[in-house]
């Protein structure tokens, strides 16, 4: 249970290259089933529009999960994440087509703490919107 990234080889300000994550309607249906969150705003366009949304929107937790992937892929071990939090600042609108929406996530090592821990700040965008804010993960490096 150890990160493959070494604390001594990481510097504050170091950027983690961006990655893109596709989200289509079928991904939201699958996520609804796996998570148990069947709120119809995430799969029913008629319902989403009736409650004032532009279209079906992704679960915030789906977007947060992609940020989690980004961090665990970088760290090398999911067990290295000791804290992870986000604010959902904008919706990821998912159109009913084969392309869906794209979430682009990048990161920067914001701080090096004691006990070989670092704070990774994430930026997540979909289209022109910043979909997460205050997105931070504390990661235990080796």
């Amino acid at each position, binding site marked *: 249970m150890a990160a493959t990234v070494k604390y001594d080889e990481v510097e504050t300000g170091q950027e983690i290259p961006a990655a893109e*994550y596709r989200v289509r309607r079928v991904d939201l249906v699958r996520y609804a089933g796996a998570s148990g969150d069947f709120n119809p705003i995430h799969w029913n366009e008629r319902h989403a529009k009736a409650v004032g949304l532009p279209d079906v929107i992704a679960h915030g937790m789906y977007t947060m999960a992609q940020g989690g992937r980004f961090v*665990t892929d970088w760290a090398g071990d*999911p067990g290295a994440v000791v*804290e992870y939090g986000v604010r959902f600042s904008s919706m990821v609108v998912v159109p009913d087509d084969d392309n869906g929406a794209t979430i682009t996530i990048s990161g920067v090592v914001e701080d090096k703490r004691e006990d070989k821990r670092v704070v990774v700040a994430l930026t997540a965008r979909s289209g022109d919107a910043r979909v997460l804010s205050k997105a931070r993960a504390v990661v235990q490096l080796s």
Partner: protein
Amino acid sequence: MPLNRDFVGRTYESSAPYEVSRVKISEFATAIGDSNPIYHDRRAAVAAGHPDVVAPPTFPIVFSLFGTGDALADPDLGLNFAMVVHGEQRFEYERPIHAGDELVCTSTVAEIRSVGRNEFLTLRSDVSTTSGELVCRTYNIIVERGGAA
């Protein structure tokens, strides 16, 4: 309609332990598009030093609010589910959750506040094993759009 502030401080227990299974972890990882073998293959997880397959960081969302459903649906709270979106989410992990864990949650309505036209409700859940070992804490802020108007 503003939410009923009397709910602040109320605590809810999960009615039964949640048993974390390899199949559920793999299903959840697949649903978030993550093929990391540590989520899907026990041997890979053990080789990485884990007792069994471990759960992705956001996995506790699957069960951590089980105890609060009745509270949020209580008419006295005044929450209009149709207008609810997720505002913030945070996890603090003591250790990774792994297959075989039997987990119980104690959830507390930590705060209710108005921000502009919206109502913000913070739920904190302490996730522990049935033998009392704290595994993680979750903080969940839900937003009722227009609730404070």
